[in-house]
């Protein structure tokens, strides 16, 4: 099988899996006061320090969560609530139009349920947030903004955002910036303190750790109202018994991924470039979406004119090639991607797209398998697309 969907989830790194298995045999609740509890706590705090060191944060800034969705919800809702409680006129959220649904839907919920107002920042045709748009929004609404949220790198088209520029604007307006860096950590350099962001989402299973564990890096001075109430285990911002083996494996994966990042990124870029060239040779009218240079090294995202993405996915799946159309709703029905639409694509181009993403187990033979299967799949998907178009 050629697995080209590492942005959905990537296999665990062997060292992370070993760390998980070893720690899962150990006893102890990290909140208990006795020896096994202290032992578990030590594992957690060592992990916190390793993650903090790898990502340029202080240990106290690492809040363990259940993963990306929880971290995004906590940052968006928690910072909004805290900021508005402190200064009631701050009830506006600025976000990019290409955020993950964990952010988009959290913001939309705050609009519906909490009376928040929102400004969505447009992106250019490469999926890049326009810095001037943020400047204009902050100039217009600066003193009523509770937070800004812009992802570090896009999960669909892989475009890397100008986070440092966006962060310095936010700092000047004393507005906290949250960034979802789930896809970025392990592929591009991420330094929490150096970036100037107030909060950063990271998750285990996108970088070789387990599913179900992640963190929100939250600046020491950033007020955040909890979502989950209870034992107050994580700086009173997040409650719930800590998943010690998950956290140890997560820390192991983060540390390994960050350490190997430059070499890993170079290797992925090389395979990705071969993939892009191979797809273009096989399907000359395929359109590469996203930014040709400012993109994640493991991401290639194409539109195949005349095809429906879900038909292509089915045909490639039958040939043992796993990839993604990008977004799906709960019933499994593909909707045209909001990311592509925000980039100015029309409905047909958005529906004709397919994402191929690489990870630590990817090889050139995955690319060869894709390139071999693609022409026949595209031809059939075009026939199916023509049937649909003939009717419309």
């Amino acid at each position: 099988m050629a697995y080209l969907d590492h942005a959905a989830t990537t296999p665990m790194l062997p060292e992370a899996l070993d760390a998980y298995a070893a720690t899962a045999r150990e006893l102890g609740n990290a909140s208990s006061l006795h020896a096994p509890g202290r032992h578990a706590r030590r594992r957690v705090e060592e992990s916190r320090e390793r993650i903090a060191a790898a990502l340029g944060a202080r240990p106290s800034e690492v809040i363990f969560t259940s993963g990306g969705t929880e971290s995004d919800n906590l940052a968006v809702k928690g910072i909004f609530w805290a900021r508005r409680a402190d200064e009631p006129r701050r009830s506006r959220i600025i976000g990019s139009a290409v955020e993950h649904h964990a952010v988009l839907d959290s913001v939309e919920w705050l609009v519906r349920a909490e009376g928040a107002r929102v400004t969505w920042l447009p992106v250019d045709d490469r999926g890049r947030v326009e810095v001037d748009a943020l400047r204009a929004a902050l100039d217009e609404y600066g003193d009523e903004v509770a937070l800004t949220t812009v992802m570090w790198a896009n999960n669909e088209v892989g475009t890397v955002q100008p986070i440092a520029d966006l962060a310095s604007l936010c700092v000047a307006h004393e507005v906290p910036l949250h960034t979802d860096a789930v896809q970025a950590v392990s592929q591009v350099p991420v330094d929490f303190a150096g970036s100037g962001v107030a909060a950063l989402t990271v998750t285990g299973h996108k970088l070789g750790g387990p599913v179900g564990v992640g963190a929100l890096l939250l600046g020491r001075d950033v007020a955040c109202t909890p979502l989950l109430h209870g034992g107050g285990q994580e700086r009173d911002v997040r409650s719930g018994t800590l998943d010690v083996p998950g956290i140890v494996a997560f820390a192991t994966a983060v540390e390994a991924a960050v350490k190997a990042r430059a070499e890993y990124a170079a290797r992925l870029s090389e395979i990705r470039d071969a993939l892009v060239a191979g797809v273009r040779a096989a399907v000359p009218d395929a359109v590469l979406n996203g930014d040709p240079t400012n993109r994640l090294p493991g991401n290639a995202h194409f539109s195949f004119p005349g095809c429906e993405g879900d038909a292509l996915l089915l045909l490639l799946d039958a040939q043992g090639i796993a990839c993604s159309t990008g977004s799906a709703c709960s019933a499994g029905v593909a909707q045209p991607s909001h990311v592509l639409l925000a980039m100015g694509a029309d409905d047909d181009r958005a529906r004709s797209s397919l994402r191929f993403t690489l990870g630590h187990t990817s090889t050139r033979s995955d690319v060869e398998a894709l390139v071999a299967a693609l022409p026949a799949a595209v031809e059939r998907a075009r026939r199916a697309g023509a049937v649909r178009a003939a009717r419309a």
Partner: protein
Amino acid sequence: MSGGVDSAVAAARAAEVGYDVTGVHLALSRNPQTYRSGARGCCTLEDARDARRAADVIGIPFYVWDMADRFHEDVVDDFVAEYAAGRTPNPCLRCNEKIKFAAVLDRALALGFDAVVTGHHARKGTDGLLRRSVDLGKDQSYVLAVLTREQLDHSIFPLGDSTKAEVRAEAARRGLSVADKPDSHDICFIADGDTRGFLHERLGATPGDIVDAETGEVLGAHEGAYAYTIGQRRGLDLRRPAPDGRPRYVLSITPVTNTVTVGPAEALEVSRVSGERPVWTAGPLPAGEVECEVQLRAHGEPVPATVRVDADGLVASLHRPVRGVAAGQAVVAYRPDPAGDVVLGSATIATTERAGVPA
């Protein structure tokens, strides 16, 4: 795969005899939450999950295909328009004609598949003819009689030789959790089974008269003629009983005058039916008259008839009168056969006549 027992067993049988089978669940609602909830439908998230689990157990790939827009245009809008025109449509038949054996089949053929396999209770033999199921109580050949020969050639019905009870037992044996899921009877896109309410929401209130067929006397009022079907007795809410004290039935619906006409049971008796837009499932009928049997509604009794094909469609002269025949339903012609009655073709009922009197 609807999420029900029939399509699950059909898929399992097709896979078992060596076909390369891919499971497809149709998303037919633009918003799945608005369609029928619970375990009886074909369109809910729960049903999608049941279908997916069945595919897992069978060991075949599974995808959801979004047919919501086409379903809405071709089936739901058509359903409402037919009622508004005073006819009584059969949406399952329309769904087979326009969605399952058209949109789905066309897409499947383009993608490289050879046929659509469904869990309909009907037989297709080596002669390629469509026949009634061995389970006459569950036979669904009536709603498949809109298929052309070409559509039929690309269709597989693995359940036609089994009774429903056998299908359920087999599902249980195969470990399919849908084995004891209740049958669906209602219209899948009407969440609460309230067809009258569904139509009222879309067509609004159009008050009119309920009129006696013999005297022309106004006997009552209605809020919309679409709420009535030919042969209906209950819910007429007439101001006074008939002089002879016998129950009255809906005989006809006239959209132009927005009138519902009622009369005695024997006035419902129809002896001649004309059909339009014929489809010859078993190939073109020979010119002239054909002796066969016709069925005039789903689960209706077949009656012997002489069918004459003309330029506009067909005319079926029934050898004995039938009650409660509604325009908009299908007239399906069968050739009786000990190996299973063969579907010759079908047409949409346009007009009916009772004993020489146009209804």
